Each structure stands twice: as C-alpha cells, then as structure tokens.
C-alpha cells in the first residue's frame, strides 16, 4: 500500500481489489441494515458506501466482476439483507441508479463512474502538459501517437 492505493500488482487481477471489497464489508454491520429505515440506508449507501471505492476507481479500471461484486453488496444492503441472507430486490438496480429527475433514486453506477474518472486522466494528458506526473509517465513509457 502506498498513499492508500495498492502498490505494484495488476489491477486486472481480482486479488488486487480485495482491500477495497474488505473495506466495504467492514462498514456494513448487521445492525445497520436491520435498524435503519430505507431512507437511512439510501443515505448511507449514497454518501458512504458508493464513495469508498472512488479513490481506487479513479486510478484503475475495475474488472466487470469486481463492479458487480460491489454492486451486489450494495443491493443486498439496500433491501435489508445480511451477508448470509438475501432479501427480495423489489426494484431493479438500473432504475435505482437513474437520477431522481427520470424516476430513480440517484445512486451512482460504478462502471460508468469509473470510466468518467479515468477519462479525466486522458484529458489532463492533453491539457496539463507541465505536470510532473506527465513527465514521469512520458519518460517511462515514451511519447507516441501524436501526443
């Protein structure tokens, strides 16, 4: 670990994401899903749980199975389930993830957010030409493809 991110390692491997999943699970205790109302759980979900992996997602592209693992933890929590006990998910996750203006609850979708976060680095590559990080990257990997 270095500055909160796994150091070295391969982000395409599932093992690489274990710390992220672990942190998420450690935030969920049974009383939270049992004693909070739907409203409370939605708030917790939106403000804490779906923000926990954001730092890792802003540097690495998460494999699809990691995204679905995280989302299934969130879904199970929202509908009041526990780790060993599922509950009926009455509304599908896609609808929950739509913004409130189009009839959802405005929970963030991790796959799309991951892409949007990574795109920022591409944008910075073009705009922020003087950054130290860019110099490090170009001296390590070289400049090619016109930029």
């Amino acid at each position: 670990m270095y500055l909160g991110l796994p150091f070295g390692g391969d982000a395409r491997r599932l093992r690489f994401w274990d710390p992220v999943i672990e942190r998420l699970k450690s935030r969920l205790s049974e009383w939270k899903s049992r004693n909070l109302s739907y409203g409370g759980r939605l708030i917790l979900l939106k403000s804490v749980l779906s923000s926990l992996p954001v730092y890792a997602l802003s540097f690495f592209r998460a494999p699809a199975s990691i995204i679905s693992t995280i989302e299934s933890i969130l879904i199970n929590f929202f509908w009041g389930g526990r780790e060993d006990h599922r509950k009926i998910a009455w509304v599908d996750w896609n609808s929950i993830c739509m913004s409130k203006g189009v009839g959802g609850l405005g929970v963030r979708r991790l796959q799309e957010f991951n892409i949007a976060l990574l795109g920022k680095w591409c944008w910075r590559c073009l705009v922020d030409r003087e950054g130290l990080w860019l110099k490090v990257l170009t001296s390590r990997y070289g400049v090619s493809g016109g930029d």
Partner: protein
Amino acid sequence: MGLVVEIRNLLTNVTLQDTELDVWLWQPNSGDGYIIHGVYQMLMRQEMHNHDFVSDAPWHKSVPLKVSICVWRLLRNRWPTKDNLVRRGVITNDTQLCVIGCGKKNETIDHLIIHCPIFGDLLQQIKTWIGVFSVDPQQVMDHYYQFVYSSGGYTPRRSFLHLIWLCGIWVLWNERNQRLFANTARTTVPLLEKVKITSLKWLKAKNVCFPFGYHMWWQRPFVCLGIG
C-alpha cells in the same frame, strides 16, 4: 484520397488566427472542459432510453426520505402486497385476500388505496377534513393527480395537498402492516387523527416558526398555512 477530401471538409469552416493559442476543447461542454460529473451524466444518458415511468409524486421537501421511498415503490407497484408476493412465489395463491377481510378481494395496491372499505374510507375522511371534494379515480397514479391538482390552486396549496397525500399513504401502509403482523386494528377515526398529527409534526420539523398548535390544525389546516 478519401481522407484528403474528408479533412478538407472538416477544415472548410476553420479560420486560423495568429494571436490565439491552441487549446483543447471538450466538445460535450466546451466552456468548462472535462468535468467528471458531466461525463458521467453523458454516459448515463445512453443508458436511460428505456425509462418507463417518471413522476415527482414521491418527492416533497417536508417529508422524511423513508416515506418518499415508500411512495416511490408504490408508484412502481413494488410494495410487498399479497398479489405481488404471489407473483414472486413467496406465498400461495389462496392466501392473497385483503387483510381487512372485506369480501373476496385480492390485496393489490389499487384495492388498498382506493377500493378497500377501511383504507379507501380513510382517504375520503382526509378529504372531508381539509375540505376537498372530488370523484375518486380507479388507479393510484390518477388518485394522486386528482387529489393534488384537482382543486387547481397555487403552489403552496398544492404543496400542502401533496404532503397530506403522502402522509395518508404512509399511515395507511403502516396500519396495513400493523394489522397483518401485530394483529391490532384501528378504525378510520384514530387513523385520521394519526394523519393529522403526523402531518403537523412534519410541518413543524421543517418550519421552525410554525406557530399553530394541535387545536387550530385540527379545525382548519388551510388557515394555519395562510392559504385559506
């Protein structure tokens, strides 16, 4: 050769200026450059082509979030009513009668809110309390629009009716669960009291300087809100 033609077409409208520096523009919103939130919205927009159902009915700023989510589920017909549980194979076909015991009626959301003698009557009583009279439609969504919009009125009045509607639904659903799981039954009169007290609490919680007590609220809610 095709590429040359293409780049000529692209460059026809471009004029170069000596004084301006070259910059990158992010086309989706050229003013601010790349913004993660904006790109996320853009990616989500591609997903949203199949949204079926939009309503602002669940959302009201004076109402607790759990109530909003409850109504959000109602409008999608995702309450765990008995007919929905049968459809998902949780309970068997012969146990889906309404909890009130009002004849041989299956428990659906339309039945609970509009046709059921106890709960339907509750919503009628609420109308009498606030002095709104309208014909009841056959479906929940229409019921909402009828209740909130039928009397026309300006925004504060609609906002108040919206709050009362949400409150009525919330009390109704809790009573249904009480009857089913705790075996207690209240008649419409205490339920109406419950609606009055709950709505007053919600209003007081958000408006610190709401000066009216229970008595005045009981009698004439519109006067309390200054929209009589």
